[in-house]
């Protein structure tokens, strides 16, 4: 059966009780702040807060383990790539050069480069927990309402929600189609050579795509029959209004990011420089 990846489950934590709009707004705020600033101290403080809130949410590890591994793999690749393509980025930014380990040619490990790459890693670490939190602790039904609330047109917001509604069905359909295909000798496992496997993949995907198109036609008819797209605005059954707690959390997030910006740009540079 399909794993319950990134599935919503209510642990009843304070994070779950927050409005989806709040969580989305906080996530966006932290993402922007984390991406812009390079001030190590601010990033460390933000990371600590992020991790603490994540801990508060009591989301079980296995719900996001796969995504986490994926993120780790990609950030390792990213780190290697930075070093490969810009081994002197750190010295350029911080203006000094403390060589630690020469490798070959222009490649040598400098303290500045290490510090720079540590900062990059930190930025990811700051952004990932709120992103996961928004995905994992927001009732999927509230998703579309939240997106619509922050200005996304409701047709697009609803498309997101509808996709989530149909993912399990399509997954199940894929399993059914591919097993029936296997019975006819369409092998998708590693036993088959790559070229053949790709060809076989198409044999399974074609009926899946056609079935999905059929499904889309039916759903769109159902949507229209119930007045979807009638007005410029609509209301939401699951749309909650913001409570006092939401406003407090939002205010804290705004203060935090304002402080981070103030500290970072107060000295006229996005970078915190420990080398001078």
């Amino acid at each position: 059966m399909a794993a319950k990846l990134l599935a919503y489950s209510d642990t009843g934590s304070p994070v779950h009780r927050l409005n989806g709009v709040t969580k989305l707004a906080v996530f966006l705020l932290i993402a922007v702040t984390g991406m812009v600033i390079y001030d190590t101290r601010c990033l460390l403080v933000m990371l600590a807060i992020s991790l603490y809130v994540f801990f508060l949410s009591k989301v079980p590890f296995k719900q996001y383990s796969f995504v986490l591994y994926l993120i780790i793999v990609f950030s390792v690749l990213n780190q290697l790539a930075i070093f490969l393509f810009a081994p002197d980025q750190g010295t350029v930014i911080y203006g000094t050069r403390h060589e630690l380990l020469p490798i070959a040619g222009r490649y040598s490990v400098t303290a500045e480069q290490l510090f720079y790459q540590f900062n990059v890693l930190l930025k990811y670490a700051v952004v990932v927990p709120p992103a996961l939190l928004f995905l994992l602790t927001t009732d999927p039904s509230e998703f579309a309402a939240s997106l619509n609330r922050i200005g996304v047109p409701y047709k697009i917001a609803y498309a997101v929600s509808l996709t989530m509604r149909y993912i399990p069905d399509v997954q199940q359909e894929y399993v059914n189609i591919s097993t029936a295909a296997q019975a006819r000798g369409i092998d998708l496992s590693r036993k088959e050579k790559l070229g053949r496997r790709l060809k076989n993949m198409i044999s399974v995907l074609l009926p899946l795509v056609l079935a999905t198109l059929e499904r889309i036609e039916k759903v769109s008819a159902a949507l229209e029959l119930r007045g979807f797209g009638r007005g410029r605005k609509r209301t939401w059954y699951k749309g909650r209004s913001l409570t006092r707690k939401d406003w407090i959390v939002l205010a804290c997030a705004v203060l935090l990011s304002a402080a981070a910006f103030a500290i970072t740009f107060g000295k006229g540079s996005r970078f915190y420089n420990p080398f001078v």
Partner: protein
Amino acid sequence: MRKPVIEFDRFTFQYRAQSEPTLHGIDLTIFEGEKVLVVGPSGSGKSTLAHCINGLAPHFYPGERSGSLKIMGEDASALGIAELSDTVGTVMQDPDGQFVGLTVAEDIAFKLENDGVSREEMIRRVRAAAEEVEAEAYLNASPQELSGGQKQKTTLAGGLVGGAPILLFDEPLASLDPYAGRATVELIDRLHRDSGRTIIIVEHRLEEMLHRPVDRIIVIDEGRIAADLPPDELLCSGLLREKGIREPLHLAALRYAGCALSPEIRPRSVETVDLEKGGRAEQLRRWHDANAPALRPTDREPLLEIERLTFGYDSADPVVNDVSLTVGRGEILCIAGRNGAGKSTISRLICGFHRPQSGTIRLGGRDITRDTIRERAETIGFVMQNPNHMISKPLLYDEVALGLVNRGVPEADIQDRVHETLRVCGLYPFRSWPISALSYGQKKRATIASILVLRPDILILDEPTAGQDFRHYNEMMNFLLKLNADGMTLILITHDMHLMLEYGQRAVILSEGRKIAEDAPARILGNAEWTEEAHLQETSLHRLARRVGISPEDEFVSRFIRADRGMN
């Protein structure tokens, strides 16, 4: 004076993609508070009629119309789908495909959300609609958790929550098991009686619909109205058989027994039909005695033996629990049970799509429990319900040849075997056609051909006749009977009672993963406890036999089926 709510006047509709109109010169008036049933074979235009009423045609399915259609006195051509949805609440077939909310409550609320109703009022109205259809207990459930009947109730509530005075049902029974189907028919009837809404039902399953009274039946054939009559008159007219619509079984039995039929005896349902006057009961008893007793099924050499099979995604909660069953060579076995009873899982276990936790599967005496999917496919063929899920090549020939190509069969042999199989399946003339040009029934046969070409000993078919009208149902089943006569063993997974009764030599009933019954279908369908467990229904034949005092009832049913087979 009754107020007309829907008025078709010389109305014609032609889809843009079609060269001829689908509806010709329709004249039809439906009055406020009426309950009208629209029947007709596939392709007759009955769905198009429904689409014209709710605006899907021409707004969603483009086309040209002429003549006039008024809904609540207003010209329909001036109204869009959204405006029409205030007047006509539509409940489409296949609740799965139209679930738009992540929970039942949201799905019901959808129409109100789009109308911009405030949240407080929305919650109140959703609750009221859910209560009206008795769905309030699972408002927070997600669609995947619901049974077929619960899904149907949800879409029904979603159709009536907007307060539309007309409710339109497009094949409401299509994806329901007989039990949920009957509950739906009763629910629609209650909605009609309690609220005075106008109800229009498009459905080809006439007998099930007539479980509750309807005011009129409209027969559509080739885009025209072939009849517009009260049920009793229509049933006596002989028009149904002419138009390829299955008549209720009790009516066919009365006919075979030579009973005179007239509207006065109220033949619309087995409960209402008058059997005493005119000696009809006596005629039925005499017919029963004159027909030879049904043959006992012969003992067959076992082909597939399943022994104490257990499987579950979660070992504490098995989906198939300690099931043993034997399929004889050349037999037609039906496996029935409600949704989630394990009937699909057991077929998947037989094909090797899942590995059982315990138990063995033997084929022709050889243990195949450890064989891979592909090895099993040499002897066991599996045909999915929806042919579109199996078709992966654009051309018919390539599709049927696919399994052989993958097995590395030499080119020359492939052609011989594909042509031979296409002949058996009646598809030889279409061998170079694209599959998309085939009809649904032909596609279905194409998927069977693509499995048959691998020369299995046994064929498992999941709901082989689902969604097909009476004519296509007969065509498909006659085709399968022919295969069976040539020696093919068939396992049919179904909750279609007609199919079980008419074609199953034996039936196995599963409930909560266990086998609870195994017997001749006529006997199973006469057992209240088993039918209840499997979400089936006693047939009208059983009730007819009981009413005239024939015992055992299943004997009467078996004799009827044999006579019926002889007639068709």
